[in-house]
């Protein structure tokens, strides 16, 4: 087993488990996994924006909520099939994200973080204020998906497949963006904006694109979330959701694609587990878990796995990762950190 095949092996294994496991999972657990995946789609967007483009955005939860409301509104008001509301949610949320990003991107770093957090904090209030549009406190219902005949006995399984398909589209989109020149340009302007500008990178354009795609994924994730729940209200999109998405991004590993899914599962399941351990101390244990993950691995869970895999390879065969392969280089970088 060489240094290149192991991560692929892990990925293929994970994909196989993702496809087979739901058949055996109880309905409620499967539903929780779907919710985690819907968050993961938004986390994936944030990884692109925060990890690769270097822009801190604390409004991802609000954009997630925006997508959910677009889905619900189009369905409740115009009777549009929930399937068709998903692309609409992605596109309209991208537009909303750009409207936020255009003025906000003049600022960088912590200032951008605070401005976007302001949006996240104001969002649930705005939902209540515009109750003629959003249904206010009582929220909006969404029709359940028409389930094809083979899945009639177990609609949860069909919901799961739809969710996985949306996640797949998100992964494909992010991979395409990160591949080749675009990905290099993103990382270059993150590592050194001035030099990138001297090389002809239009900083505003690149950052806006990243913001737009990240928002589109937030919207898609939100749309999926709305369909899964069948009902949404402002309560689901408090400012804490934005923070949770940032936590998911960092815990999984901001510069990874796999990490978005680990992060999504983390923010859905770990708080439940910790409060199972002790109801009163749930948040304390959750907090300690977060601190623990960050202390063990600065680059998230995926970074940690890479580090371990790398260490294993070196001790068992003395095989130093090759700098000629992209994978090998990633391992070197992970090792240095």
């Amino acid at each position, binding site marked *: 087993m060489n240094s290149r095949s192991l991560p692929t092996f892990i990925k293929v294994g994970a994909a196989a488990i993702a496809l087979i496991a739901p058949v055996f999972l109880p309905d409620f657990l499967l539903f929780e996994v779907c919710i985690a995946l819907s968050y993961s789609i938004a986390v994936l967007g944030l990884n692109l924006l925060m990890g690769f483009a270097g822009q801190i955005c604390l409004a991802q939860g609000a954009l997630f909520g925006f997508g959910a409301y677009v889905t619900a509104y189009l369905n409740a008001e115009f009777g549009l099939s929930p399937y068709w509301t998903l692309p609409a949610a992605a596109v309209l949320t991208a537009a909303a994200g750009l409207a936020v990003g255009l003025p906000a991107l003049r600022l960088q770093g912590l200032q951008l973080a605070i401005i976007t957090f302001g949006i996240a904090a104001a969002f649930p209030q705005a939902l209540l204020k515009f109750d003629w549009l959003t249904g206010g406190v009582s929220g909006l219902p969404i029709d359940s998906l028409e389930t094809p005949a083979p899945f009639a006995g177990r609609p949860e399984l069909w919901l799961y497949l739809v969710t996985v398909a949306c996640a797949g589209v998100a992964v494909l989109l992010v991979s395409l963006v990160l591949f080749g*020149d675009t990905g*290099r*340009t993103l*990382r*270059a302007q993150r*590592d*050194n904006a*001035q*030099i*990138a*500008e*001297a*090389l*002809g*990178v*239009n900083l505003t354009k690149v950052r806006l694109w990243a913001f737009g795609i990240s928002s589109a994924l937030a919207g898609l994730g939100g749309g999926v979330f709305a369909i899964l729940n069948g009902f949404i209200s402002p309560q689901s999109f408090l400012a804490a959701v934005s923070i949770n998405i940032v936590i998911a991004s960092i815990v999984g590993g901001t510069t990874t694609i796999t990490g978005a899914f680990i992060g999504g599962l983390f923010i859905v399941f770990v708080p439940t587990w910790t409060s199972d351990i002790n109801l009163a101390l749930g948040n304390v244990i959750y907090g300690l878990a977060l601190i623990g993950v960050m202390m063990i691995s600065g680059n998230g869970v995926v970074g940690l796995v890479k580090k371990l895999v790398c260490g294993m390879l070196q001790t068992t065969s003395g095989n130093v990762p090759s*700098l*000629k392969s992209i994978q090998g*280089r990633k391992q*070197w*970088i992970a090792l240095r950190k």
Partner: protein
Amino acid sequence: MTLLDVRGLSASYGKVQALFDCSFSVGDGEFVALLGANGAGKTTMLRALSGIARSSGTISFDGQRLDARPPEERLRLGIAHVPQGRGTFAEFTVDENLSLGAITLSDAAQVRRDKERWYQTFPRLRERRNRLAGNLSGGEQQMLAVARALMSRPKLLMCDEPSLGLAPAITAEIFEIFKDLHKRHRMTLLVVEQNADLTLQFADTAFVIETGHIVATSPAHEMLHNQDIQKSYLGV
């Protein structure tokens, strides 16, 4: 023929003015040295020309007005800027750094040919093409920064203090490469330097800049022997 013509260029950082009404021109195929002490405004001049620093006055390049254009367009028109301190991307390989230099170009086949061409000029980079730029020596990083700038197919290559932090032997090697670019590839060069003696041996023309004013202009070989200028401005 004049390639670059600058008239009344001023630039400031907030309230601090760094360049005052500078005028000069650079001929096509000329090797120009921009000399001066620390804080004289040399770097600001290059930044104003490439559009990274704001400036007023007129800049004409290859028959076109540049002053209102963003850096990206200036690069497309043919001004490449190798910033001070090299600025190679440490976590990118040598090859990827070169690709970044060509992001304004769309013809992939041409980019590949250009890479091969510059690998011929910089054989050390070819040997290290798959290494991370952060693991290169200072001299190799400087070569990489120059090669990366060349990838945009510039007409004018501006280089900010290529000798910074390099051993004299490596600096000389870099200047030999400039000479080669100048003579063989007919590249127009504008090099900012503190090492006046070395630069004047290679350049055609030299400008001396002091506290934001251009205070002397002459053929490089004359300046090399002009004790007054050397004493007053270059601190030799």
